[in-house]
């Protein structure tokens, strides 16, 4: 029996919004096994992103325990790569300097020449060839997302926390990125927690899908997705099992969507 990489035990998180207490997460229990891909689906404002912030150590839980690799998460969790929903590219750095920033840090100190090569390869990979010298302010929303993804992929963290990473991409590019993400999770034996509001995307990618309720966020249902890691992101959606799972999870999700639209 293997130890879980991520464990949330009776975790609640309360925010103080100008004197009003808002309960974002209500006694959540969630465990993610090594090399598992878990998708969190739910209406907006249901606390899915808060789960990622807790695992990354950027927020402490109000009550309950958050553990990573058996140890409580205290302060920034440097073993995860986190792609936030918000744009966090540095606006004064060019695209190439943004993507390569993790390799500049003292803890890696990759030589400039190798850094340039890896940045170039990563830019080709996410489809940003030719935009090396552009500033983030000169890119479209989808291109900024790809740059942020590249910035995280380049330093190869063991666990990915992804908050709607492909939300702003067009359908074709999204499919390609899905295939690449699946390939990468296999090749690098990654553990992934993936937040999305797109149920089909969750089923396409994940080993397990957790459906959240509207605020205060609780886990309403968890389903195992039986397609394995060697799946084909493009053709999966035409399988009858895919349709059945989508139907089943949508039944859980649809009651919550109407409730949780206020943010």
């Amino acid at each position, binding site marked *: 029996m293997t130890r879980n990489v991520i464990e949330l035990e009776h975790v609640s998180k309360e925010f103080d919004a100008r004197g009003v207490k808002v309960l974002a997460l209500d006694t959540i229990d969630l465990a993610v096994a090594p090399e598992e891909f878990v998708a969190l689906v739910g209406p907006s404002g249901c606390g899915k992103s808060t789960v990622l912030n807790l695992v*990354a150590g*950027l927020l402490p839980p109000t009550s309950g325990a958050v553990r990573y690799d058996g140890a409580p998460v205290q302060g*920034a*969790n*440097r073993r*995860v*790569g*986190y792609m*936030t929903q*918000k744009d*966090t590219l*540095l*606006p*004064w*750095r060019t695209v190439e300097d943004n993507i390569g*920033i*993790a390799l*500049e*840090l*003292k*803890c*890696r100190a990759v030589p400039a020449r190798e850094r340039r090569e890896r940045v170039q390869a990563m830019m080709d990979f996410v489809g940003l060839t030719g935009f090396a010298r552009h*500033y983030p*302010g000169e890119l479209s929303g989808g291109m900024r997302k790809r740059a942020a993804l590249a910035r995280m992929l380049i*330093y190869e963290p063991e666990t990915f926390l992804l908050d709607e990473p492909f939300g702003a991409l067009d359908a074709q590019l999204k499919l390609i990125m899905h295939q690449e993400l699946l390939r990468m999770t296999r090749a690098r034996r990654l553990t992934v927690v993936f937040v999305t509001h797109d149920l089909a995307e969750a089923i396409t990618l994940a080993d397990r899908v957790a459906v959240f309720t509207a605020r205060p966020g609780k886990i309403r249902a968890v389903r195992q997705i039986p397609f394995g890691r060697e799946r084909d992101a493009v053709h999966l959606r035409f399988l009858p099992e895919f349709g059945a799972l989508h139907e089943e999870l949508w039944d859980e999700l649809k009651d919550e969507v109407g409730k949780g639209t206020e943010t």
Partner: protein
Amino acid sequence: MTTAPSRDRSGLLILAGQVLVILLVLAAWYFASGTLVKKFILSDPISVAQTIAAWIRDGSLWQHLVVTLQTLLFGYGIGAVCGIAAGLAFGVFPRVDSVVSPYIVAIYALPKIALLPLFVILLGIGIASKVALVAVVVFFILLFSTRDGVRDVDADLGAVLRLMGAGQMEINRKVLIPATLPWVYTGLRVATGYALTTTVVGEALSSNRGLGFLIESSSVRFDSAGVFAAIVVVVALSFLITGVLGRFEAASSRWRS
């Protein structure tokens, strides 16, 4: 290709307009002096030019200009360095800020020129008292703009780097300082105007050298042309400083376009 010549032409038109405006003002001034207003009170442009030429010939303009530039340079430099350092400290350590800021705000509210007599007693009538005054004025402007800049930095930018394994020094160098820089530039630009004003006023009030002294001493001699001549030199100086600073700022924040 087709827009370039037309842009050149509109640029030329604007320049021609600008020259026309200054010529009209000078002409109006020339004809008003001695007709509408006594020459004794309002000198004419030609006398002003002659006065400046005379100052250049006898070397007195250069003497006064050097004193004013020295005051400006030292006062501005000392004030800016101390102000940026204090602003960074206040921004990074909010506790320090909350303890000290009531006093800072109280001193800031004081019209700084009121400190000049104090500085003259402490440091004498020479350049040092004016340097101190300019430094105080510049210090507060840079303190507040730098502190607000540090506070405005998006905490998420630092958090992303921390997750990548960056230490605090690396976050300071790669996020905090570049993100604060535009605020510092704004402070520096605003401070140049105040520094020049303070220098000239300080020299006019209590000094025996400098462009401000030149204005004041011409005035007490009822030398209208001398007053205008000194003012023209101050305007030219201010124009030059603003231009140089603008170039520098534009070059260093290209990403904001």
